[in-house]
């Protein structure tokens, strides 16, 4: 095999693997944010919340 084929295969399989890994990591990062947001909403007692004063 010559250098072009070797570099080509490294690009094809390496980049695909990196993109797949990046997708998984991005998914986890966004999922963690959504979960944190949901937990923050769950922690609030929305029914007892007073409307904020217009003066403040």
């Amino acid at each position, binding site marked *: *095999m*010559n250098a*072009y*084929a070797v*570099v*080509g*295969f490294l*690009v*094809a*399989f390496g*980049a*695909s693997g990196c*993109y*797949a890994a990046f*997708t*998984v990591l*991005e*998914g986890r990062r*966004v*999922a963690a*944010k*959504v979960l944190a*947001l*949901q937990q923050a909403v*769950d922690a609030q007692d929305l029914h007892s919340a007073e409307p904020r004063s217009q003066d403040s």
Partner: protein
Amino acid sequence: MSPSTNQPPQAEGRRSRLVRDRQTISWLLGASAFVLLALVSVLAITTPAPDYVQGEASRLIYVHPATAWVSYAAFATNVVCALLWLWPRTRKIGWDHAAGAAAHIGVFFVSMTFVLGAIWGRGTWGTFFRLRDARMASTLVLLLMYLGVVTLRQLPSSPTSRARRTALGSLLAFVNVPIVHFSVLWWDTLHQGPTLAKPEKPSIDGMPLATMLLSFVAFTVLFSWLMIHRTRIERWNDALLGDDLDTAITARQAEGRVARSGIPA
């Protein structure tokens, strides 16, 4: 209170079963993509080079056409989802999420096609890129147009106006896909003509053909797996963005009311 806990137990059970099924499908697709790509990488090295004249560089036929095919598939998925969003009867924000995911994946695969083509071109034609070549120039334009679509999605706006904007951008960009594909037939280019998609017998046979077809299957499975994950990311990003956007819109509206009434904030 979590939104899911407000649902009746039957609906909750169905929902968790659906989530479990989706996870199983995602896991199976991911594992299949990994195994198939590993097999393709072994076969691409062990199978003889398919072209005597081009020599060893022609081994790139085992990956380059497959990545081009996946970019076409991604752009076709993108435009179908865009049309489904634009059609009032089928309009759902989920189509926009899928369209965004497909555009992102398409940009990645067309970039890879471009790079692999440049490497192959350097090995056989002696040049990485030639702007006056129809296939190379049209592929570059395709990449730039879909980069534009992906960038349009990043601009801050409501999900509806973002979906409309990117759907129209997708329709415009997709016009270039057939131009790229048929450029080798419509113009004289350095790029070779079709190997498989032609009326007569394919230009290769035996193990090289089997390896090439397997690479199409492997990259298509990878595309399906990526679609599941990227669509989910788009949906979750919207959930986060919606909150920030509502806050920002409320703040701007309040500023506007203050400015109109002439009362300093």
